[in-house]
């Protein structure tokens, strides 16, 4: 078993989900997540609030790039799966699809320690 991140993105700017949409959508998440947990494959999840700030290299802080982009990050979940195909299977039925979003399935990169160990031929 390896861990994978499921990264949720939803429409942004003028197309942000409406409060009415969210009222229907949010209760579906526990059901879906519990289905993964029931298989013993759930690790953790967090949902992001819509608002936030963006710090640029120049030191300028703005109210987020959310008007300019088409999609924004909505949250993530970490799951355990045999391989990426199984992780994709787990992502099926994610309620993000009901509000026009996507799920990106990503393996984790090796840690710096693991890379160092590999370079040292351990």
């Amino acid at each position: 078993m390896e861990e994978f991140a499921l990264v949720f993105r939803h429409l942004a700017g003028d197309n942000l989900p409406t409060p009415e949409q969210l009222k229907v959508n949010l209760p579906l998440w526990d059901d879906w997540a519990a289905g993964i947990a029931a298989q013993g494959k759930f690790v953790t999840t967090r949902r992001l609030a819509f608002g936030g700030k963006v710090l640029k290299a120049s030191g300028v802080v703005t109210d987020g790039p959310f008007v300019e982009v088409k999609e924004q990050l909505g949250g993530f979940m970490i799951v355990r799966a045999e391989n990426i195909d199984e992780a994709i299977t787990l992502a099926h039925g994610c309620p993000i699809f009901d509000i026009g979003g996507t799920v990106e399935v990503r393996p984790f990169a090796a840690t710096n320690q693991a890379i160092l160990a590999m370079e040292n031929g351990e």
Partner: protein
Amino acid sequence: MVAVISNLFGLQHLDLTEDIVSEAFLQAAESWSIKGMPDNPTAWLYSVAKHLTSHYFKRHKTFSRKIVPALITGQEGPALPQDPDFSDGNIMDSQLKMLFAICNPAIISEAQIGLALRILCGFGIDEIAEAFLTNKETINKRLFRAKEKLRKENVLLEMPRGPEINNRLDNVLHIIYLLFNEGYYSTTKNETLRKDLCVEALHLGVLLTGLETTNLPQTNALIALMCFHASRFRARQGGDSSLILYEDQDKDLWDDELINKGEYFLALSARGPEMTSYHLEARIAWWHCQKNDPPEKWGKILQLYNQLLLINYSPSVALNRTYALFKAKGAKPALIEAMKLKLDNNHFYFTLLGELYKNIGDKNAKACFEKAYALATTHNDKEILMRKISGL
């Protein structure tokens, strides 16, 4: 009594303390059978124990003054020339300290439960062995090793302080929870023993409410949970020592007083933002105590199981959640979720699958019940499955 006297001797001399208490009971048995029961048996026992304790101290003092200097030993005896204090306040105080000392992560949880039963609940070794479905030697060995460990680790009889108390309380609550489950789900046929285990667990839980630092929302949630479960004790017990399933229970046999107690503690548990697994399980148990089956019941139970799974996975929670899904949304969606569980060595899993197939009129039901029958180990479980198969 062991808890109070240990306060003087310390955990290093737990065996000695147990000897003194046994001696007090032995004297009681002898004296009472000849002279009859005294007016206040408890006070009688306490005064004998007090006497035996101070006798030990006197003897030990002579021993340590006159003999020990002549010997060079590493063994130090206790030296606190003081009478044990059997006032109500001190009894509670001592029991709490003992509870925290016993529920020490240094020893395995079965041994923690065993010690709690032996020292705090006064159970006999044979009763503990029966509760754990094992023999006296195993329990004796387990308790001996646990006491050795407490001695070696130099575990002190004192309440942990500050933030430490929270970490330790988690373990104490877990042990009480396991003790309760041992009684509630135990396969031993001895009904009285099983009830005793549940009552003792409840007693230890309530003990924790006596102290501000341990009377926390999660403590109250655990007590509520135990009250709700215990309220169905009478209803789930068939005359022939078989278990009556929830669906078939006579709701008039549910104990309203315990349900009310549970609701009292459930309300207390809601003071604060904590949402522990005890909170969720207590709420699930509360919904199960609703006699008139309100339409939202199973939907609410499903939501609670969903949350419980997200913080605390176990195969049985996964199965219960799937059952709640079946009751709330029907057999078809539940079957899709059930197929994903793949608990291939679990007879409850195949029982649930059989139940779901049966509900949509699928002939796979029989094969599932038969598989469950092959996997089931207890007579009671096999009998229930036999009835299900012949009822198809």
